[in-house]
């Protein structure tokens, strides 16, 4: 027995020894090849000359422009009307009405806390002087979310019903998410005009994938037993879908809506590039004027808006746990403060007020229900009953509508409320600008930034750049194909080689290697910074709470806002580009490290400790191996986000495929931009698939998932 285990471990050992040996050998050969080559490796000229992808795309675009623009113009026309309608409504309404429109739903669904928060958000829009812009953004986002949800659920349902359709959609969805919006933003302009319509369509392309995915998984996750019992009661396939499966997957769909809102907000800033009005335009102007404070104010408008919508949509998918009757319910303060006298005193009047409001609401609603029931009963008895019942169930909605009506009535007939009062201004521009300026000239801080810049450039970015661009293309391709073969399989290896051939044949091999190297450096830095932060957060709850808030802010704040400070501190260039990428893409790795480590059940670590393992040992030998799948998912997301950021970094001196997209667009050369954009997508997809397959293997090895 002992002998057997020994031999097994020996073969394992020799196996891993061989693996490492092969990796080392491959690396050395690559190093030798890259040192020997004189310039960056290039694809054979015959291939790049023959493969005129750029020209084909441009010809195709011209053809479409000539022949199909009238269709797209009609579609755009409809979207535009809808958008203008919403926009005009918001802009022409008195500010009190707008505030009530945000406040009341938040109050009803999320309680007093969310209600008060929504009032603060609305105040902030007005106080920073971005009232109109914020409302334009809300209108733009609202319409795109509506359309996303409508089409997204339909596509999601279709995916859930047909495996073939799902398989077809998967790469499409990947592409939609990773394809830089810049690539389709400008062609969209020609087909759909400027302003709201193309912005909404671009947002739909970018924001729809999560809702399609989550609808699909939500429906597929409905348990077999439920489905079987429904079928045994004789429900048809459609009934099964609409009466059982859809309602049961509602939480998942709500989650999707939440994600759509977040992604729509992320694209709103980019939308200014095609003339969509809103906060995006303000942030862009602020950046052109190097006004960090102004940009930050715009960013905060979006950030607060995002948090409001996030909490609002979350409050639908969450059901409150009812308290025992004898406990006084707290409306504003945390329930755990109940033991303090002061908290009870503060909450007392709130409880009273809420009781009064509840009473009024119920009375008003009931009387309206009664009256409308009486009125309609003249025509038809059954409809009257239906209507009465329908109204009387909506205690909060009906009174809210009445409040809104009263406000607009007062505004138009008695006293004009007008737009947001100018006296209530508040500005944080100056302090932020002063802060940034003070840091810019602070010798210690600048010494640190210069050191960091030199370190990253000399030790990471520059060597990797040279290494990757100088290895012959066939060798790099061979390595990718081999990795693809060993992790995923033969089919994927074949696809990988085709995708890489496409990149090479488009003549963007060097650029894509530069992009790859800056993504790798960014991801490495994310790892080096993010994993320790994640570990600390998994041990210390207070740290975790603070970190979560910061990460939320980092993910929602438009990346334009921190580009200028990064530039001022680090100077323009590839290093700044890498650092901006790190800021943007570090949150997932931190979050998932924390998640992975805290999910490892207590028993494992307790067992380890009882065997005398130290904290480090437990972490290193028990927790980390078990958290690996979660870590890899974090890694995976970080990689995708880093790739997505490559399209923005040329704005501050980044190189590679992103710059190629910009240059293509600057010369009105859609084909060139598209080829580079596709290059980014393909690299991202290859790396994504490989790391996902690797995770799956790990999970299987750990017994967490079935093969």
């Amino acid at each position, binding site marked *: 027995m002992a002998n057997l285990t020994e031999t097994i471990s020996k073969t394992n050992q020799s196996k891993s020894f061989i693996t490492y040996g092969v990796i080392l050998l491959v690396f050395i050969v690559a190093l030798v090849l890259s040192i020997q080559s004189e310039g960056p490796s290039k694809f054979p000229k015959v291939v790049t000359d023959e493969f005129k992808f750029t020209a084909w795309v441009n010809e195709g675009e011209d053809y479409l422009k000539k022949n199909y623009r009238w269709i797209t113009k009609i579609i755009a026309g409809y979207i535009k009307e*809808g958008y203008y309608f919403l926009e*005009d409504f918001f802009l022409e309404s008195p500010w009190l009405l707008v505030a009530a429109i945000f406040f009341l739903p938040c109050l009803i669904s999320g309680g007093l806390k969310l209600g008060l928060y929504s009032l603060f958000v609305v105040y902030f829009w007005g106080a920073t002087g971005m009232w109109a812009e914020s409302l334009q953004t809300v209108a733009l986002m609202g319409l795109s979310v509506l359309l996303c949800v409508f089409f997204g659920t339909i596509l999601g349902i279709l995916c859930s019903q047909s495996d073939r359709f799902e398989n077809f959609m998967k790469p499409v969805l990947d592409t939609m998410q990773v394809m830089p919006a810049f690539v389709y933003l400008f062609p969209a302009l020609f087909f759909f005009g400027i302003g709201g319509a193309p912005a909404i369509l671009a947002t739909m392309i970018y924001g729809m994938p999560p809702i399609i995915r989550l609808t699909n998984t939500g429906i597929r996750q409905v348990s077999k037993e439920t489905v079987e019992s429904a079928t045994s009661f004789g429900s048809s396939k459609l009934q099964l879908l609409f009466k059982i499966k859809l309602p049961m997957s509602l939480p998942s769909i709500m989650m999707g809506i939440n994600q759509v809102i977040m992604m729509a907000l992320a694209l709103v800033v980019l939308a200014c590039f*095609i*003339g969509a009005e809103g906060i995006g335009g303000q942030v862009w102007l602020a950046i052109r*004027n190097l006004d960090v404070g102004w940009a930050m104010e715009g960013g905060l408008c979006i950030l607060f808006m995002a948090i409001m919508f996030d909490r609002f949509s979350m409050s639908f998918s969450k059901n409150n746990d009812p308290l025992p009757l004898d406990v006084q319910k707290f409306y504003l303060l945390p329930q755990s403060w109940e033991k303090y006298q002061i908290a009870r005193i503060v909450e007392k009047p709130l409880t009273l007020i809420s009781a009064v409001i509840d009473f009024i609401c119920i009375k008003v609603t009931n009387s309206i229900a009664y009256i409308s029931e009486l009125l309609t009963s003249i025509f038809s008895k059954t409809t009257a009953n239906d209507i009465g019942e329908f109204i009387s169930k909506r205690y909060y909605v009906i009174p809210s509508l009445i409040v809104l009506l009263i406000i607009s009535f007062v505004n138009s007939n008695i006293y004009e409320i007008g737009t947001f009062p100018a006296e209530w201004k508040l500005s944080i521009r100056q302090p932020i600008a002063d802060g940034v300026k003070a840091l810019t000239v602070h010798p210690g801080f600048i010494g640190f930034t210069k050191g960091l810049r030199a370190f990253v450039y000399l030790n990471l970015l520059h060597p990797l750049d040279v290494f990757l661009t100088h290895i012959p293309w066939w060798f790099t391709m061979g390595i990718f194909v081999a990795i693809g073969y060993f992790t995923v399989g033969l089919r994927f290896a074949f696809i990988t080689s085709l995708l890489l051939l496409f990149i090479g044949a488009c003549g963007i091999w060097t650029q894509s290697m530069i992009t790859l190297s800056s993504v790798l450096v960014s991801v490495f830095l994310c790892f080096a910074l993010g994993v320790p932060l994640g570990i600390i957060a998994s041990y210390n709850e207070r740290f975790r709470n603070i970190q979560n808030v910061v990460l939320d802010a980092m993910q929602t704040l438009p990346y334009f806002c921190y580009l200028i400070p990064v*530039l*001022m501190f680090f100077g*323009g260039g590839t290093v700044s580009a890498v650092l901006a990428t790190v800021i943007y893409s570090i949150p997932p790795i931190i979050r998932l490290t924390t998640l992975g480590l805290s999910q490892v059940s207590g028993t494992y670590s307790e067992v380890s400790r009882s065997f005398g393992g130290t904290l480090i040992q437990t972490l290193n030998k028990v927790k980390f191996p078990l958290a690996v799948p979660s870590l890899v998912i974090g890694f995976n997301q970080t990689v995708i986000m880093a790739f997505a950021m490559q399209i923005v970094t040329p704005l*501050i001196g980044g190189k590679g495929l992103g710059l190629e997209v910009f240059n293509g667009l600057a*010369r009105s050369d859609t084909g060139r931009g598209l080829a580079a954009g596709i290059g980014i997508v393909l690299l991202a997809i290859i790396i994504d698939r490989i790391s996902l397959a690797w995770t799956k293997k790990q999970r299987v090895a750990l017994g967490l998932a079935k093969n």
Partner: protein
Amino acid sequence: MNIKKTIYSLILSSLLILSSLGTANADKRLTAAVADWTGGEITCQVAVSMLEEELGYKVKRVVFPSGTGLWEAIAAGEIDFACESWPSYAEADTVMMKGPLMYDGKSMFNYEGDGSVKLLGTTGIIGLSDYFVPKYAADKYGIKSWKDLNKHKDKFATIESGSKGRLIACPVAGWNCHDQKRLDLLGIDFQADELGTEAAAIAEAVAAYERKEPFLLYLWEPHWFFGAYDMVGVGLPDHKTCDSFTEANNWKDCGTAAWPATGWAKDYTFNYGNPETFAKAEHAKAAEFFTKMKFENADQAVMLVEVKQKNRDLKEVVKEWKDNNPEKWKSWIPN
């Protein structure tokens, strides 16, 4: 019941949309792309305020980053006009415009594009680009012309440029500045670093100036930067054209004799618009106004200081100028 309700609400909402359609059309309306750099914004505001206050137009302003997107939008008729384009930097002018560029009654250049965008007329602003060093650095190292740059290249070097000096170059590749080519032809041992956007280049220059570090910056006049910071030009050789330096000729240069081994040509900036819009009879006056407009560098420079250094509202500054200097603009207005 449910279906009925949906149908009703659909009908109601479509009615609402239709009713809002009716109000969209009106006669004297134009859509303008407001430039996204301060000088251009001022020129735009001057033009727009003339159209609005003197010619009775209602102009819708759209923030639209300059670049090919803007040219496409104008060709497609989505935007009626845009202001202060610089010929050296206009990415699409030679492809899309047709006809002579007139300044002071003289033809400065003849465009031979497809005419999908109309050249409305020069703005009067004349732009000039050059390389600049901050005054403190020029004094400290005694840099008087571009020939002195090589001696001090190590002071201008960064981690990325190694032994060479670094030029914060013309930020956008599409602007066709050919900085690296110029540096190489003139034998200046510097590396041209394209940062992608004007904002990036200026941000870095501002930070370097605040820290009193030496830097070499590509920039153009009039620009608010000169009002805030003391800069000295390096005096490149005067501009001469080189006919062979085109993409069709595989960028064959003329050595040190001509472009790009020289400074830039004077930029007679122009306003441009959609040809169909300005061919209409009801817009004849607006078209005539654009041919007559002649805004001056000195005026823009003063207003740049007001807006950027004194943080005043741009519209207010333009209004003040307009009220105080009627003799300057009265002649632009068609009778």
